[in-house]
């Protein structure tokens, strides 16, 4: 029996791997004394794939049998190259429990090909979640991918059992979607998405009145956009994301660089296509600025701007477009402004504010606070550091940044940024050398 399961596991994990989301954060499920598991933390990456992505959840398809024919998907009906298999509900449940107890995973991310219709498929996913919660007292993380077109009743049940729900938009424009996924349209996607959004809002409201009211997808809702299969620009993509955050109240939008599989001429061909690794990475950085740094869409990607600057990170790009807003005085600027300085993160900005309550912050202090001076040096002042270059020539600043190694590549996984607690990699074994303070 095991042999069979291991083969299914290989096939159904392989088919699910292109889904970028692997977050296990945002859950609020506490364990019970007799249960197993919790998902109250900031999310844990239990391992990393050899391509550097976080492995947090057992991420598999229930089945890779699919009646749809989406060109970008390995499980599409017309692909004769794959072996079609399906788990049973018990198999997924046992795998999840066995992996969870060994501390391999934070929980389960279950999705599926549409083997019959949206509801029959969603029912299976819900059955797995129900069995885990009710028969095994499982309080770990469950993320269910809702099948476009699923009925409201099933969504309600799914939301009661899962920590997070997602409906993948996949293609960043409806026209693009119709091109590559003839059976899908935005209605099928946004219908369930809206239902989940309202379910989350209602449950929150109920819990305000009554602490014991049931939770509904407490980890929120997310979606994924496939980048590069269709011709949308970064500006168009970010415009969509911005709307998804503000209107659909999504917790996260994931960007998944298209990996061409060949055999379908509706999408780019593996022979000629270069994976947009860098592009995906810049999109994550821009998305981060929208969500965490209070940037407006037009500041990050001006209307009609096409793709993001590939040479420098979006924050540097912004600073170079608005040089007259800089440099910023480290000892006077409000926190929100410090955070807008390239090379300064939320944490280092807070450290500056904390330190200057007690005295003057000098140039050498900044390094110890985790400021990336290579980039930041052009955009901020201290009593002992007064940069001029930006005033004279923003282009020269760009040259210096691009030429040096300060291109702003964050120390994060390129695909699914790691949960915040791991965002700054441990400096390994050696302590950072102490910085001599100017007396």
């Amino acid at each position, binding site marked *: 029996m095991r042999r069979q399961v291991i083969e299914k596991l290989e096939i159904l994990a392989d088919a699910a791997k292109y889904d970028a989301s692997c977050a296990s954060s945002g859950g609020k499920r506490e364990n019970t004394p007799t249960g197993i598991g919790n998902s109250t933390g900031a999310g844990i990456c239990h391992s990393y794939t050899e391509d550097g992505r976080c492995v947090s959840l057992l991420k598999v398809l229930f089945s890779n049998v699919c009646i749809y024919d989406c060109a970008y998907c390995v499980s599409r009906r017309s692909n004769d190259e794959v072996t079609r298999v399906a788990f049973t509900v018990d198999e997924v449940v046992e795998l999840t429990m066995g992996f969870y107890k060994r501390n391999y995973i934070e929980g389960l991310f279950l999705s599926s090909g549409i083997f019959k219709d949206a509801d029959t498929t969603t029912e299976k996913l819900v059955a797995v979640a129900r069995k885990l919660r009710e028969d095994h007292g499982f309080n770990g993380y469950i993320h269910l991918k809702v099948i476009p077109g699923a009925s409201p009743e099933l969504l309600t049940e799914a939301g009661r059992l899962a920590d997070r729900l997602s409906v993948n938009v996949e293609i960043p424009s409806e026209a693009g979607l119709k091109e590559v996924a003839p059976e899908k349209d935005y209605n099928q996607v946004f219908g369930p998405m809206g239902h989940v959004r309202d379910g989350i809002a209602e449950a929150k409201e109920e819990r305000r009145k009554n602490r014991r009211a049931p939770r509904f997808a407490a980890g929120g809702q997310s979606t994924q956009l496939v980048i590069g299969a269709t011709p949308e620009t970064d500006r168009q993509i970010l415009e969509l994301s911005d709307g998804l955050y503000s209107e659909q109240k999504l917790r996260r939008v994931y960007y998944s660089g298209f990996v061409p599989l060949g055999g379908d001429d509706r999408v780019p061909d593996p022979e000629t296509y270069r994976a947009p690794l860098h592009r995906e990475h810049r999109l994550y950085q821009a998305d981060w600025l929208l969500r965490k740094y209070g940037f407006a869409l037009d500041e990050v990607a001006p209307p009609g701007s096409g793709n993001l600057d590939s040479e420098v990170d979006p924050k540097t790009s912004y600073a170079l477009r608005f040089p007259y807003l800089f440099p910023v005085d480290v000892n006077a600027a409000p926190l929100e402004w410090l955070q807008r300085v390239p090379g300064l993160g939320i944490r280092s900005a807070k450290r500056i504010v904390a330190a200057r309550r007690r005295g003057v912050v000098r140039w050498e202090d900044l390094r110890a606070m985790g400021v990336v001076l290579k980039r930041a040096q052009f955009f901020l002042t201290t009593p002992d550091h007064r940069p001029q270059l930006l005033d004279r020539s923003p282009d020269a600043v760009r040259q210096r940044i691009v030429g040096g190694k300060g291109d702003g590549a964050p120390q994060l996984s390129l695909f699914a940024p790691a949960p915040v607690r791991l965002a700054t990699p441990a400096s390994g074994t050696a302590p950072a050398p102490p910085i*001599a303070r100017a007396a």
Partner: protein
Amino acid sequence: MTTSPTTPPRPAGPPALPVDPHLAVETDGTLAGLLCAYAETYKRSALPASVGLIGEPASGALFGDVLRVETEAAIAGRVERGLERLVPGLVGRIHRAVLGERPGIEVAALRLADAVRAEGAAAADDWTFEPAREVAQWSGRVGREAHRMEAFVRFERYVADDAETWVATARPEYHVLPILHGHFSTRYPTLAWRIVDARRGLALVHTPAPERAEGEPATRIVPAVTLGLGDEAPDEAAYQRMWRAYFQAVTIPERRNLALHLRHVPKRYWPYLTEKQPPGGVRLDAGVG
């Protein structure tokens, strides 16, 4: 190095208590011991230049005075409450920092505690004040190592006389066992599990509630050699194989990126990661103890 405890802090002026370069204290090495050391030195109006373990004389320096601090829970509790009132979370930060086992960190912790007492909460987050920065940085390093242990320890199922035990082995860089119990106790409250620190020869052992005597804590830290081990459970190898198969299957080969991979999973963790073992292989010192 500017870690010399006599460096005058800038810019808020020296903390009320000076460091006496000839004063050394000895404690039992616990957090409570360190908190008591603060109470004791405060009474003497001077901070020590070194904090050592009772019975292990401080090396190198010649100290005129060695003060042996007895740990008293009541005193430690008082100091803890006082500090927490000023800066919530500070005692946890200090605890993590000293678990980094870095020489001199206890002195930094005492200076920080005293600065907070003398000058208020702002001192704790001022990274231009060296003790504050050192404690925060070490707390961060130890916290990250603990977080990695929460992520990377792998339990294996053993059975003896019908009872199962879940055993994990690791070699943490820092002494993180004392801060791992909370996470794993809430995660696996009904399982008998243990985490062995092979570097230090210690094990964090969890006993599920029904098997505990009244008043016995859920976890203890004991020498690893005192623990017996049953037989590997019959399904253990199959789960390990499935996990390795899964790990292989989720990699996108077109995007293999070893540098990035190593940054996330440094080589030193590999000997204890199930997914890094050869097919069918058994971990080198799995279940040591």
